[in-house]
């Protein structure tokens, strides 16, 4: 875990929240560096939503402290002017149009209702592709359109910290790609994005750092690349099963654990070697010294999904 730095956009220390007998968040410490796109992962019921709601002041923590943008949440509610958020499904007034929903958000935020703001509202609707539907009642909107409008509202105050909880839920593939592009653009623009999502490839693609929560506790935190390399191994392909069998014996004798690589064709001609990618040359030398010559040797990085499942299943055990 990274230590607290002066530039952290989110600093959480010892966060705890209980609902009756259920300890939803159990002493969570979290530091989100300013400017990072930070993935916040966890299975259902892991305490993600509770954490996000505590961060945003929607629910009270039983213990712990929260600092956002360098200011304490408990004392300084004015800091929310720099924070945008989309928590779960966007909550909208179904009897109002998209534009009126945005206007109400702007008025509630104290942004006024002048011509300048009207331009900003139009731009916000443009950004999420809802310009044409601005005057339509939200009641008739699809889930994806509602989600886009929720994102437009979250971006209305041009936040420096954006908290997004499942922002692509309900979106079609094109919508997912659009939102991903918006998040990436915000990240490039220096906005800190705290992203909670179940779409792991999206998180893997977007996020600089990732935290994994399980049963209210942090089970992993770090740079995305570091997390993905923690269980990295090597895949070695040979010309045929006989060579692979001989190589397995050589490597086992040299102290490495091997197993068949099921995805390599023809069947039986590939090996997975339990060695980090940096040990590739050493494996190669060992094989060559025993007259085994691999056709291909490549690092085998686990997907974020595999890391996530391993971390959360491990904690269950």
């Amino acid at each position, binding site marked *: 875990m990274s230590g607290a730095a002066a530039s952290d956009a989110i600093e959480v220390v010892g966060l705890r929240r209980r609902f009756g007998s259920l300890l939803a968040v159990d002493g969570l410490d979290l530091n989100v560096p300013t400017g990072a796109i930070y993935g916040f992962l966890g299975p259902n019921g892991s305490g993600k939503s509770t954490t996000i*709601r505590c961060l945003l*002041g929607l629910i009270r923590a039983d213990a712990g402290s929260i600092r956002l943008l360098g200011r304490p949440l408990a004392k300084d*509610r004015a800091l929310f002017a720099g924070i945008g958020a989309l928590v779960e499904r966007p909550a*909208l007034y*179904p009897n109002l149009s998209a534009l009126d929903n945005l206007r109400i*958000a702007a*008025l*509630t*935020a104290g942004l006024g209702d002048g011509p300048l703001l009207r331009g900003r509202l139009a731009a916000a609707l443009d950004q999420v592709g809802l310009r044409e539907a601005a005057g339509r009642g939200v009641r008739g909107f699809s889930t994806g359109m509602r989600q886009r409008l929720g994102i437009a*509202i979250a971006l209305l105050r041009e936040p420096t910290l954006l908290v997004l909880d499942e922002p692509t839920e309900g979106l079609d593939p094109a919508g997912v790609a659009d939102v991903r592009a918006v998040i990436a653009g915000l990240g490039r623009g220096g906005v800190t994005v705290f992203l909670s999502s179940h779409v792991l490839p999206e998180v893997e693609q977007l996020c600089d750092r990732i935290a994994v929560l399980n049963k209210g506790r942090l089970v992993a935190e770090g740079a995305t690349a570091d997390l993905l390399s923690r269980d990295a191994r090597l895949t070695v392909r040979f010309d045929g099963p006989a060579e692979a069998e001989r190589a397995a014996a050589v490597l086992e004798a040299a102290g490495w654990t091997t197993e068949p690589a099921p995805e390599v064709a023809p069947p039986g001609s590939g090996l997975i070697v339990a060695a980090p990618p940096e040990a590739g040359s050493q494996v190669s030398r060992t094989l060559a010294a025993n007259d085994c010559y691999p056709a291909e040797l490549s690092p085998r990085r686990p997907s974020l999904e595999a890391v996530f499942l391993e971390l959360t299943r491990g904690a269950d055990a």
Partner: protein
Amino acid sequence: MIDLLRADLLRLRHRGDLWVGVGAVLVLVVLGYVTSANNANQVNFGFPSDQPIPPDVLEQFARQRDPYTFPLSIVTTVQTGGGIVAAVMAFIAAAWLGTEFLWGTIRQLALIRPDRWRVVVSRTIVCALLGAVLVGVLIVLGTVLPVVVPLAGSGHAPTVTVGAIAAGAAVQWVTVVAVIGVALTFTALTRSSSLGIVFSVVFFIADSALASNPAWLTSEVLLWVPRLMLGERLRALQTDVQVAFGPADPNGYVPPVTPLTLAAPLGLAIIAAWLVVLAILPCLIVRRADIRE
């Protein structure tokens, strides 16, 4: 706060139940007035048409038409319509806050405005203003309806001062504001429009039942229980205003002094204290609530 008020007005404009409520006030007040005025117009009710009606009975019938004679007609519509306005405003206030919880928009409001109590203050102000507008509509109806429903025969023309009309309207508005406060408090507490309305009705029925309980009469200390009750004080305020500003009763009738009667300034102070509590309570509840919607 101005922006919050503007946002609330924008929301309110698009609420169908607002227009249904305003329509209900108009229809019920007009219907009630027309029916009562037509009853009062029956000059020979119960008397055979071929027999002369004694002058004292004619006088009595004429007095029945007094409440529908301008300008007393204004006092009549304000008094009879005030209850309808209070009920409609309780419904609108509860529905308005309750749907924020139902739709989950309370979450959006809390995210944008962490000082969420201001949102409740703004809503209370808008509801109170709307209540004032509806009481104003009652005054207009009281002015227009005597023209639309002319009286049979000559009614008296009791003198009613502008002060009496203003005081009557103010009392009705205070009642409406108190009812709005109760509705918003219970809605914030239960996070539901329907439960908010049900609890408000229960509150006022319980208030009325408790105030009339003779058990309080057994001691001077216990007497303060009904004396401090909101409904009792609002009823007493209406009587006080009627006595102070209303047309003098020809028979010299003065409402009896009961053990619950308090000096008018003390009664006003108790109502003011209730209004302050009812303004603060929903704000506190929403401010401290966990928003799980």
